[in-house]
């Protein structure tokens, strides 16, 4: 009873109170007091943007990976495992370097071609 009553009441109230405002073209535009939007809502970007963005994300994440490494480096130093930790990060950076060279040489970073 209460539940049904509540539902009916809210529905009726929303009809009674929720009068929609006046509509016109200005009101319907995305930014009522801004610039008028021009063109399509989903313009085409050059695929180069994606390439750059992807490369950015990859290298960014890999740099993030180095922070915890740098933070724990002292602990490993204390435990006399510095060589292992150092070389593993070197390997990581080495692979990164090859990947970077690859991207560079293949022209992924040159905007013109």
């Amino acid at each position, binding site marked *: 009873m209460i539940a049904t009553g509540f539902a009916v009441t809210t529905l009726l109230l929303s009809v009674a109170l929720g009068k929609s405002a006046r509509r016109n073209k200005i009101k319907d535009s995305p930014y009522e007091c801004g610039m008028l939007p021009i063109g399509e809502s989903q313009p085409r970007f050059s695929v180069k943007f994606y390439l750059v963005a992807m490369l950015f994300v990859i290298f960014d994440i890999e740099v993030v990976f180095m922070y915890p490494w740098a933070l724990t480096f002292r602990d490993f130093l204390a435990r006399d495992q510095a060589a292992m930790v150092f070389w593993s990060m070197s390997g990581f950076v*080495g692979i990164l370097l090859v990947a970077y060279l*690859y991207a560079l*040489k*293949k022209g992924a970073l040159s905007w013109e071609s």
Partner: protein
Amino acid sequence: MLPYYLEICVVVLGSLMLCMELFAGRRSRAKIAMVGVAGLGVIFALLMFAVCSPGEDLQYWGIYHFDKWAAFYKGLALISTLLVLVMAREFAPVFKHYTSQDEEKSGIGEFYCLPIFVCSGLMWMASAKDLVTIFVSLELVTMGFYVLVAFMRRNVGSLEAGVKYLILGALSTGFLVYGIAWTFGVSGTFNLEELSVVLAGDDIPSAPVMFAFALLIAGIGFKIAVVPFQIWVPDVYQGAAMPVTAYLSVASKAAGFIVFLRVVDPFLAAPSIREPAIYLMVFVTCATLIYGNLAAIAQKNIKRLLAYSSIAHAGFLLMALPALGAAGTIAGPGPESAISFYLAGYLLMTLLCFLVLTVVRVATNGEDLTALEGLGKRSPFLAFAMLVGVASLAGIPLTVGFFGKFFLFNIAIQNAMQNGLWIVVFLAVLGAATGFYYYFKIIRAMYWEGSVSEGEVTGLKVGRLAMLAIILLVVAVFFFGIFPAPLLGLTL
């Protein structure tokens, strides 16, 4: 020499090849594949001779194990990658046709490099005994395959295969991660050895463990193509380039199986969920056997046929699983040995078939069964090699495929004698009999069909390296089909 240097060597080799592709001149660039083949050969030699005896069980940081299985599957990964490179070299003309005639733009150099990186992932998988390591290495492999499958960018089929593989692969990854999360939630550990201790305890709630188990099976089942996670297999196998298909069906499956064995083992060892887990496995096995074998009958495209046959083979392999954890009662090689032996044999015969098919593909531009017609006259040697491969897949005696099936049936029948699940044996017998039909269809195409007029009787061109590989594989299929001991000894 420490075992994980092997993976480092492989990665270094891959990077080296990539640098060659970048900086070397046109002439030395042609040798990238040769460098890869030679490098992998050297690393395989290192695995055989330089790394410590696999009798010991070495552990590093709790996430990397090196035992006999690890060594065995690393060997499989190396050999299959090596042969795939040989195949890719042979396949280059078709490949250029669908990308670009220009050597540099065709990306063929990268096509040689990627399998090397995938190989490092496969080798790492063989050593992973920790759910996180398993996940990371599995992803390394899958990422490589995402690219490889879609590599022929001007071929619609290849692109379609790429998209399918990507989407379904991502889905299965989701299952796997979710399963790992549940497992960790229940047991509080990622390490499989600790996991088996925890699961063996009495106070483990069986429902969430079963749930985690099912999710893990779904995740890894995708890699080894068992029903109902096989949907991607036919399309991807058909669409991908021939060497990639071979690589998928052999290396990805082998590595998937070692992981599968390692993950399933602690669950089957746990008394509280052993029984439902086995029933789940039996259900999957039966479905895989039925689906793979029946669907293969109607195929006209060879790659698609081999795709379904690869599903069927996964079904045969799964037969041995219920014997896991019931150790000491099996006469003959245990389930792990039988599966490993079968996978090694499967590698030999499948790669043999694909090598021949690659040659035929390059020469005739066809992948349907009709492309093989008259091969018996055009090139008796290739036809014979294909005959050997197919006979072995069908499980004709005195080939390695027969011993593989034999060991698996041996286990399945002994299982059935204990637990009464004869349905598996029954379906496997039916499946193997069906196999005769669809494998013999290939033989029929080669020898019965196709009247080649006199002028056409010319041998197909086969590269020297590919020829050598084919001969070696034929010899190996026969050799291990008569003397299985050397190969089986590695897995015992």
